[in-house]
């Protein structure tokens, strides 16, 4: 069980209000991702839920119970930290057993659970090593193991993959997703990486300056971003924004077109421009197009290898059904 409700929660550090009044519900079993640029308050929000910080006002309920004043250990939540926060002086076994020891479980039960977790996480061979002797990925798994054994109501992840290298990150991403599928426990995951958010989440919460900009499934956010910020934040490469006359023709202050929704051609197309830098990824090619008269650069994604060169003048055609329209305040129209 793990339904977490935030009711008009605020947080201020002295004069500075980091989280303005905020309402949010995370359903039992949901994988929720808090995403936003650094300093948006996503980690603070997680620490408020964990109980590592006091809320300045408002209420936090876990499974309907008011947990606002409950100390971290009593909330039934487990947390995985960015730095893994393993106890360097304890073996892997002792690290994983620590929360159980603190809960005064009997030794047989502790052994049973530690062995079980080690089994699930492929740590059995490393149980007697110290964290210092493990690789980044293994340390991450120990941190997760320490969280699992507590059988918490919900897992909290604070940017857990940001210290891993790119290849390992993809692997761990899958492992955490699989873990979620298997355990069906609520998970709240904080990241600044929209790819992690898109690939893992059931529900994404986009935050900026402590405000919730939008809550929704990954595809909802991709298809119908509520405003310019979300539109620009979700999706890679970033959505192209065009203002002025072209936007006015669509009855909007700003229109947005994703790079993958623009077709390139030698001869045909609504817009034209000169090819600047091209990034060849093999599977895709990103063109940065200048001199379009629309915006400084228009980014276009083409499938596979397309043979345009630097300086070529080409034509672009946006998919008309994939044009996002925004008003003067940056809010979505329609």
């Amino acid at each position, binding site marked *: 069980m793990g339904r977490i409700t935030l009711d008009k929660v605020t947080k201020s550090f002295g004069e500075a209000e980091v989280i303005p009044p905020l309402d949010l519900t995370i359903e039992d079993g949901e994988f929720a991702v808090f995403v936003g640029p650094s300093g948006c308050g996503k980690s603070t929000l997680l620490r408020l839920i964990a109980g*590592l910080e006091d809320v300045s006002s408002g209420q936090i309920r876990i499974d309907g119970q008011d947990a606002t004043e409950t*100390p*971290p*250990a009593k909330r039934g939540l487990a947390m995985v930290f960015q*730095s893994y926060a393993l106890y*360097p*002086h304890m073996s892997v076994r002792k690290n994983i057993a620590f*929360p159980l020891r*603190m809960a005064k479980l009997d030794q047989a039960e502790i052994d049973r659970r530690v062995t079980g977790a080690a089994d699930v996480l492929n740590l059995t061979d490393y149980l007697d090593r110290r964290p210092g002797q493990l690789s980044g990925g293994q340390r991450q798994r120990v941190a997760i193991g320490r969280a699992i054994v*507590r059988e918490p109501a919900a897992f909290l992840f604070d940017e857990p993959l940001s210290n891993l290298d790119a290849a390992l990150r993809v692997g761990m991403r899958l492992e955490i997703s699989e873990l979620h599928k298997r355990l069906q426990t609520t998970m709240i995951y904080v990241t600044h990486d929209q790819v992690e958010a898109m690939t893992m989440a059931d529900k994404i919460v986009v935050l900026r300056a402590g405000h919730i900009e939008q809550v929704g499934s990954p595809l909802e956010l991709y298809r119908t971003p509520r405003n310019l910020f979300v539109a620009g934040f979700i999706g890679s490469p970033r959505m192209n924004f065009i203002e002025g006359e072209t936007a006015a023709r669509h009855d909007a202050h700003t229109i947005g077109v994703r790079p993958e929704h623009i077709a390139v051609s030698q001869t045909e197309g609504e817009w034209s421009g000169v090819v600047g830098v091209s990034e060849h990824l093999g599977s895709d090619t990103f063109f940065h197009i200048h001199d379009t008269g629309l915006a400084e650069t228009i980014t276009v994604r083409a499938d596979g290898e397309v043979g345009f060169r630097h300086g070529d003048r080409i034509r672009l055609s946006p998919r008309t059904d994939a044009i996002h329209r925004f008003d003067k305040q940056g809010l979505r129209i329609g």
Partner: protein
Amino acid sequence: MARAVTPRRKALTTLAAWAVGLLIFFPILWTILTSFKTEAQAISDPPVFLFFDWTLENYSVVQERSDYLRFLWNSVILAGGSTILGIIVAVPAAWAMAFVPSHRTKDILLWMLSTKMLPAVGVLYPMYLIFIQMGLLDTRIGLTLVLMLVNLPIIVWMLYTYFREIPGEILDAARMDGATLRDEIVHVLTPMAIPGIASTILLNVILAWNEAFWTLNLTAAKAAPLTAFIASYSSPEGLFYAKLSAASTMAIAPILILGWFSQKQLVRGLTFGAVK
């Protein structure tokens, strides 16, 4: 990364460095050597360096005549006791300042330091009076307390700098894992900070061992440590160089050995983190 140097240059540097090192160390070396000489050899002109009749007699004479072991014991009690007391008081304080900092933390730390800078002589008479009133004059307990207070700012400060190197997330993790404040300090913080705590203990034992204002002014006979024992050699025994040397060697030997282990901590402890 060390830069490559020519062997010639390295040889020259070696020569210079050793010459300077031996020059600086010479007074200590000379004292140690003299302690094994007879009194006659100790003052012979020209001085003898290594080729003399080595004897241990001075050491036994010093012990017999002035009860060296009693002073040594006092030094051990004072230095050890004041350090342990200091650590007990300082660990919680340093924990609080390192992991629950507030806007006042910096002011408190600096204020603590400022007490270290108070010239002892400025409060000599009041301390003297307090000691007499409370019957603490020439007692180990009184002096232990004073030495603890004298070094407490340094202990707090050193522990603080060590604790600050422990990532706060680990303590957060312990809190999430259900550790109480006591568990957190006993099972997580202290084991992780053991190297830092050991260095702090080491440096403070040295400082307390060598403290020579309060130990000279607040003791007479019963509680006098080695600083006072040596000061009593000022005259006329000071003229017996071999015995003076033996007494001196015995007074500094324990701390020289400890000191050699604590060079790095010395910098951290005495500059209050201002030089890294």
